[in-house]
């Protein structure tokens, strides 16, 4: 056995018989290929809206809409392929990981290995390399997180470190040594692509700005509102995923954009289950899990209200979402538990 207790179903006391788990976790190319077709169809539709409104004020809401459909699925697909669960065919999985990580703006293998570490030590201070904000969260941390500035800064630093072959202690901790040369190559190619995109307007090529750059910037906050509620206000340093992680209810559109990761507790319990099978997994283990929190909007509004009250020194008990006991106070100074690691 490993010299630590990985955070998963076993450490959370959740049980599922092997036959059921294996049938749920079965891999197929079909759902991922259907997802790509649907995603491209949405992008064609929202891209057409941008094209039709260029030069008018309407281009801004059109670019926001296009940005949401560009950015959120890019994040979701990059995450799913980092797990290797999006497709049965490995080459397809790795190709989509590369392209969607380019859109998400993180070197693909750095994404994979820091995320593997996040699953092994979910929300453990000093061990989890994907804690994207200080806890307990205040309003300043919330703003830095949801605008995307903090994440973009971190990912750019990672790109530069990797491209220069200067590997940080975190990278060395989570990454097999033989992978570094591939990561350096990837980082250099991706930085070159970003540089070409940045230079394009100087050569009169503006479509990348309207269809890619501005939509990517506008879509980032929506992507980050999805990821924010995965663990915020929940328990650090717990072996139980049920205490550290949140699932929330969802409609078909949010489920599509987020590739069903609203079932986030279930995903952390059994990360080998592919996105399309998460509702089936949720059904199989629902009697052992806390009820999911309200939907995307309500959960995010509640989080925003709590962090604002925390920063103002007021009581922080939320009315509708789960919180770790220490997150609920009557106000006053906040004792920091965790410092962001990304």
């Amino acid at each position, binding site marked *: 056995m490993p010299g630590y207790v990985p955070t998963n179903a076993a450490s959370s006391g959740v049980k599922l018989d092997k036959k059921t788990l294996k049938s749920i976790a079965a891999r197929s190319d079909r759902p991922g290929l259907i997802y790509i077709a649907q995603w491209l169809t949405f992008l064609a539709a929202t891209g057409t809206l941008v094209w039709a409104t260029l030069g008018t004020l309407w281009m801004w809401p059109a670019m926001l809409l296009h940005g949401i459909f560009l950015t959120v699925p890019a994040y979701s697909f990059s995450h799913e392929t980092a797990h290797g669960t999006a497709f049965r065919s490995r080459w397809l999985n790795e190709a989509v990981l590369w392209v969607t990580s380019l859109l998400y703006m993180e070197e693909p293998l750095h994404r994979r290995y820091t995320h593997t570490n996040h699953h092994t030590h979910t929300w453990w201070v000093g061990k989890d390399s994907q804690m994207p904000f200080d806890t307990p969260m205040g309003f300043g941390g919330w703003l830095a997180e949801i605008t995307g500035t903090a994440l973009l800064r971190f990912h750019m630093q990672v790109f530069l470190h990797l491209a220069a072959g200067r590997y940080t202690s975190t990278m060395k901790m989570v990454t*097999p040594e033989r992978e570094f040369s591939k990561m350096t190559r990837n980082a250099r190619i991706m930085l070159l692509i970003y540089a070409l995109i940045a230079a394009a307007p100087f050569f009169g090529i503006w479509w990348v700005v309207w269809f890619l750059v501005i939509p990517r910037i506008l879509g980032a906050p929506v992507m980050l509102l999805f990821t924010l509620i995965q663990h915020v206000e929940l328990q650090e340093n717990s072996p139980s995923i049920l205490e550290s992680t949140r699932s929330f209810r969802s409609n078909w559109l949010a489920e599509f954009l987020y590739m069903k990761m609203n079932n986030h507790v279930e995903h952390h319990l059994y990360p080998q289950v592919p996105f399309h099978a998460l509702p089936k997994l949720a059904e199989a283990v629902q009697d052992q899990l806390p009820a999911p929190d309200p939907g995307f909007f309500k959960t995010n509004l509640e989080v925003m209200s709590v962090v604002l009250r925390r920063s103002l020194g007021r009581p922080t008990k939320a009315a509708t979402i789960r919180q770790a006991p220490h997150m609920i106070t009557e106000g006053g100074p906040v004792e920091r538990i965790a410092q962001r690691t990304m």
Partner: protein
Amino acid sequence: MSQWIDACATDDIDEEDLIAWEHEGKSYAIYNTEKGFFASDLMCTHEEQSLEDGLVIDCVIECPLHGGRFDICTGKALSAPVHQDLKTYPVRVESGRVFVETG
């Protein structure tokens, strides 16, 4: 000294699946794949995680902890984080029984 041991019935392992099997204090994985039956050490060479709950895809076993993959037929480590090959054992099937050559 190597010896052929009667490990299980062929029906004991679903298609595209594996079972854990113990013999003389040592743990083995026995696989039923599209290419036939195979055996290997049970523990992943990366961090000593049991492969019992891993996924068999074609002739590949994927570790349930970090997703490291091994070729079941040869034990070859296919993708990081695993780099060290998995030890495999000869298998033969006779009259509906799976025999593993241990040693």
